[in-house]
């Protein structure tokens, strides 16, 4: 049973309030990611953005993906980016003018892109035809994901592990320092 709250005559569900809060956190910290002159703070805001997206996944009835998002993105990728920042830049000395390049043109281009996407989402008939009014309440937990991953999608799954292995070996080779005398 979903409870409705009445605010100014509008019937508002708790899910809608949660959505607005999560979307606000996600988009606000995403704006911080692209606008922060200090790249280390931008990386920390990226962690917050990814956390908000995990919350949106829960609202879409995809709890396993939310856990994956927190573990891999918030846990691993953000940490890796912060480590790379520590290894590669003098983070504290950069001002806004040095970090952001030509923001007016970029804002115009991104705004046009958003206008195009928004008009497409708002007007498309096919979205209305094939889409239900809410997320499915079928079981999409770990069992369903595992069954799909290891039965119909087993070949891409193995291929992804191969790609990961190659990428990690490549990353080690690229970042290894060349010292004369070593093989």
């Amino acid at each position, binding site marked *: 049973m979903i409870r409705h709250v009445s605010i100014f005559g509008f019937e508002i569900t708790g899910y809608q309030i949660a959505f607005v809060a999560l979307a606000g956190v996600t988009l606000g910290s995403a704006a911080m*990611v*692209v606008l922060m002159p200090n790249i280390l703070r931008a990386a920390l805001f990226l962690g917050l953005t990814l956390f908000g997206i995990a919350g949106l996944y829960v609202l*879409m009835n995809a709890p396993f993906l939310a856990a994956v998002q927190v573990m891999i993105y918030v846990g691993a990728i953000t940490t890796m980016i912060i480590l790379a920042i520590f290894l590669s830049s003098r983070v504290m000395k950069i001002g806004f003018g040095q970090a952001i390049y030509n923001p007016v043109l970029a804002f115009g281009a991104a705004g046009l*892109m958003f206008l195009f996407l928004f008009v497409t989402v708002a007007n498309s008939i096919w979205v209305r035809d094939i889409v239900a009014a809410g997320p499915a309440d079928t079981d999409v937990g770990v069992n369903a994901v595992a069954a799909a991953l290891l039965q119909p999608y087993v070949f891409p799954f193995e291929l992804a592990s191969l790609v990961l292995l190659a*990428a990690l070996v490549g990353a080690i080779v690229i*970042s290894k320092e060349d010292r004369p005398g070593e093989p």
Partner: protein
Amino acid sequence: MSHSAYGIPISWFLTVGAMLFCIGLFGMMVRRSAIGMLLSVELMLNAANINLIAFGSYLKAPTIAGQIFAIFVVTLAAAEAAVGLAIVINIYRLEQHVDADKITAMKL
């Protein structure tokens, strides 16, 4: 069956995805440091993931394929970040900066 009582139509999620993608696009264009560009790429990949999961979950015949695709995107994003950051560290070692405008090692 669907949770229509949630009161959240799919277009809300698609709009958030579109906004996130455009923020990433903006960041891709304004940043000059290679790490800043990598952050923006992560934002754009996540925007795509939101759309994949939204459609997988909201279809009248809901499918797990959206979530599986999103898992592959996350996996490849991890690989991409590892290789990209390795390249950034190597460039920093060679040139003492990671400014994408000034990296000319591969120019003819």
